[in-house]
Structure formats: C-alpha cells, structure tokens
C-alpha cells in the first residue's frame, strides 16, 4: 500500500493554477525527489500535503486514510514531518530548548501536572531531555546545544530543522530544499544522515535544486512544471527525458514551444 497517495491535486491562487491535477504515489522506504523550475508549484504541493494550504480539488491519502483538509498539527501528529524552504527558527531560544518542541506532541501530562511539577511530569521532561541529547548527537550538533538558534551557522540551522522533526516518530520526511546554503562537505554529511534515517524506515520526499545530489540520492524523481507533472522515473530516465531538458534548458532554435 502506498504511504502517501495524491490524486488529482489542484490549487489555484486567484487565476494562477499553481498545482494543476497532480497524481503522486510514495511508497514506504523510498527516497523521492521533486524537481522543477522556480515557480513550478513544488512548495505548494508540500504545503497542501502538510495542511498549510487547502486544496481546491483532489484528495491526499496517508496509509489509506484521507487527510485532505486536516489542520497542519493533525497531519504532523499522524507522522508526516516537514521542514520549510525558509529556515524557520524559534528565535531567542537555545538549540536544546528548541529541540524539545519536537517532543511536545508525545507528551501526555496536562496543564496542572506541569504547573505543580509532579513526578509524572518530571519523568516526561527527563525523557524529552534525553531524547534531545540523543538526537543532537545523531545530527552532530551536541557541541552547539547551548547556542542560541539564531546564532547558529546557516548550514547547521538546516541540520537543526531536521533534528527537531525526528524528535518524535515520523514515517515520512518532507524536506523543502534541505541542501540550500550548505557546502559540499555538509551536503555529503546531511545526505549520509538522511540515508541512515531511511535505513530506520523513514521515507523521504524532497524538493531540491542541487541536481548532482538529487541524481545520486533519489530512488525516483518527479519533475513538475507549471503545476503539472511532466516526467517521473529513475534518475537515469529523467536525465535523458526530452520534456525535462526542455523545461530546464528551453527548446532548440526553430522548434515550436509546447504551450
């Protein structure tokens, strides 16, 4: 069964059809890349899947359940983690403090136990701390745990974003341009971490412009342009697909442009 099944997804902003009848299927354990020129509708698809936008048409199913129209927090609780294209941070907090945000949805103690610092609340708090430290260690951020998030180097902020998401169990990670602002060394490090996550059973769906990384990293690539899917297949198939070459490089002189 498909992990995420998107059928006939459509979203318009005024007269602009940002996403126009897209069908996507993601399977457990897969790494799928979503590529396309700027303005093709990639981030819109992510926002539709994670509930930050509501689709005009179409359905999104997660493990067979319809999740179309749910709130972002409800979708996150089902196990769909995401990062944002613009690095969003909890300004003014330390790395460790902001890591705890990813753990909140697993915590069961309510308002009063937290207010009176009961033993069940303390137990949960200690669990959250341990999990944060473990996750920071996994992402190689232990050294930075007491730094303010806004003082963190740009590349490491991307690492932090992913670290926060994997604080709670997720089945699929939607990464919106995770490699932007990273140098080659950091890219190979991050891709290594992502492969490790995949081997733990987490599927990955990512938007990325760094073609070299996408080609070597993804099992399958989906190319969209003007809100429509123009190609889908293995990296080899995509790199020789004429429609993709046209979308990225334009067409040969003299040949008519596809409308």
């Amino acid at each position, binding site marked *: 069964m498909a992990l995420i099944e998107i059928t006939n997804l459509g979203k318009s902003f005024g007269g602009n059809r940002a996403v126009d009848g897209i069908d996507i299927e993601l399977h457990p354990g897969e790494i799928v890349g979503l590529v396309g020129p700027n303005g093709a509708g990639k981030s819109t698809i992510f926002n539709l899947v*994670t509930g*930050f936008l509501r689709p005009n048409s179409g359905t999104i199913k997660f493990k067979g359940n319809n999740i179309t129209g749910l*709130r*972002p*927090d*409800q979708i*996150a*609780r089902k196990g769909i*983690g*995401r*990062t*944002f294209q613009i690095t*969003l*941070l*909890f*300004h*003014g*907090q*330390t790395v*460790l*403090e*902001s890591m*705890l*945000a*990813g753990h*909140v*949805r697993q*915590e069961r*103690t309510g*308002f009063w136990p*937290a*207010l*009176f*610092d009961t033993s069940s*609340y303390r137990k949960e*708090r200690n669990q959250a*701390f341990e999990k944060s430290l473990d996750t920071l260690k996994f992402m190689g951020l232990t050294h930075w*745990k*007491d*730094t*303010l998030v806004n003082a963190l180097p740009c590349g490491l902020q991307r690492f932090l974003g992913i670290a*926060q*998401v994997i*604080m*709670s169990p997720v089945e699929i990670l939607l990464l919106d341009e995770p490699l932007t602002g990273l140098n080659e060394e950091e890219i190979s490090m991050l891709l290594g971490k992502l492969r490790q996550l995949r081997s733990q059973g987490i599927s990955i769906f990512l938007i990325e412009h760094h073609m070299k990384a996408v080609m070597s990293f993804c099992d399958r690539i989906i190319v969209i342009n003007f809100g429509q899917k123009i190609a889908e297949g293995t990296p080899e198939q995509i790199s020789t697909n004429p429609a993709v070459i046209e979308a990225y490089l334009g067409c040969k002189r003299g040949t008519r442009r596809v409308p």
Partner: protein
Amino acid sequence: MRPVRIGGAAKFFLAVVLLGCIAFALGFLPNRWQQICIMWAIWSTVGMSWLVILRVGEFSVGQAGFLCIGGYSAAVLMLKFDCPFWLALIVSAATCGFVALVVGVIILRLKGLYFLVISLVFAEIVRLTIAASDYLGASEGLFGIPIPNNLWFIKFSTKQGWLYLFIFILALAGFTFRRMEKSRIGRIYSYIGASSDLAQSFGIYYMKYRVQAFVISAFFTGLVGAAMGVYLGAVGPEGFTFYYSLIAQIVAILGGVGSIVLGPLLGSALYTVFDEYLVYVPGARSLIMGALLLTVIFFLPAGLVSVRKKLFKKKEQGASSIGTD
C-alpha cells in the same frame, strides 16, 4: 566543610515565609506608602497578565476590558445579589475567564497588528456597552459597594487589609506565571510566539494554547479588577479607559519583558512611586512620566531587570535556563 543543601520543598517554604513576613511588614508603613504598595501590587499583577499574552506573540491593548468586566461583576454580585465578597471575587474572575474563552476563540484568529486593534476594540465595546446599560448604572456606574467583613486579623475597613489582599493576589499570580514559564506550558507559548508555523509542523495546535494564555491572563486581570472595584467602593465606565490597558504595558516594558515576574514587579514599583509623587507637579506630570519612560527604554532596552548586568558588565551566560527550577 560541606555546603548546606536545601531541598526544593524546603526552599519553597522558606521563600513563602520570607515573602509573607515582608508582606506583613508592609502593612505597617505610613498610609501613603500603603496606598503606593496597593497600586504596585495591582499593576504588577496586570502587567504580568499582559506578558502572558505577549508570550504567545500577541500585543494586547485590551486589559482594561477585563478589569472592567471583573470590577462590574463583583459590584453586581455584591450589590444586587448580596453575594459574599470572596465568592464574588472568584465568580468575577471566572466570568472574565469565560468571556476570554468565547471572545478569544474568535479574535485570536487574528495576528499582529490586527489583533492589537481588535483587542482595543474589545475593551472599548465592553466599556461602552456597560455605559449604555441602565441595569449597570449607565454612565454613572455602580456605587455604594459594601465593605467586606473582616477575615481573621485582616480588616477591610483599613488600607492594611486591602494591601494584604492585593499582595495575596499578586503572589498567587506570580507563583502561577513563574511555574508556567519554567514548565512545558511556558515553553510551548514561546514556541508559538516565535513561529506558529514551525510549532504547527511539530503537531502543536497553536489556537489551543493561544486561547489558554488569553483565558489565564483574563482570569488574573479580572480578579484584580474585581478586588479593585470593591476596594474603591464604586465602579464607573470612566474608570476603565484605554489608559488602564496602557499601564499594563508600561510596567511590563519598564521592568523588562524577558522576565515574567521580576520585570512587572520592578516596572510597577518605579511607575507607581513616580505616579504618586508627581501629583506635586500637576502641569508637568505627563511630561516627566514620558521622559522617564524614554530614558529607561533608551538606556535599558531590556528593562530594569537588566540593570545589574549593565552595571557590572557581567557577561551573558549562554547556559540554558530550563530545568533549573
């Protein structure tokens, strides 16, 4: 020699006893200083309540609305239903909380400047509705609220009794807000305040916590409003103007918004002392108050709580403040 270690419960008990003694001693100050202390406790509590809403990222200018609802509920309960004072206080605060719940679900959908404007509108609607209602005394307000019965050694016919009551409310609010700030609740509020989108992507339903913060803030503001109404013996629509909402922000910003308890305590102390003694310069009152505010904001942008750091040039510690309670 091994240093003496004090456990959490013992420390808390010691703090309660110490603060209780200080509060008790305040009751023997000259009359005028007791009045200043009452105003200090009132504005500290309202300032702290305002900060709770700021924690979830919203700038409210509607605190006067909740002071108004609290004051009027207590007045109506005591005048028209012969309700005992203590019950009136609790019911008034709960009424404010309930109003905040209903109103909050609607107006907290707005963010930033839009919320600021609608919170101002809310306070004005409350005030003008009351001013138009004959049952609530229209523009004259309600007066002749009876003096509550004595409670043990606390006499509400004297300033001393009221001072103790307001300090008790302040302590209750201070304890609650400090615990919230130190626990998961305060952390979640600050996540939402920093970036509600990111918080949502971690499965945090931000509306729930925004409304929660709004209700808690309204509860304590209403409690103060109710006690204030009975203390003054009268409530009128002219008493709860926009200026009251401003004072909440002034004391919190003067003291420093980074600290939810200490900030308003310091800011309110400075404000109330100046406010009291500036009656001697009637013409220049607002001018001097404005100059004071500007001076503090200019030289201490992080508020009075940062004065120690500024003086001793202490290096800011990057260490995490969580889990230290």
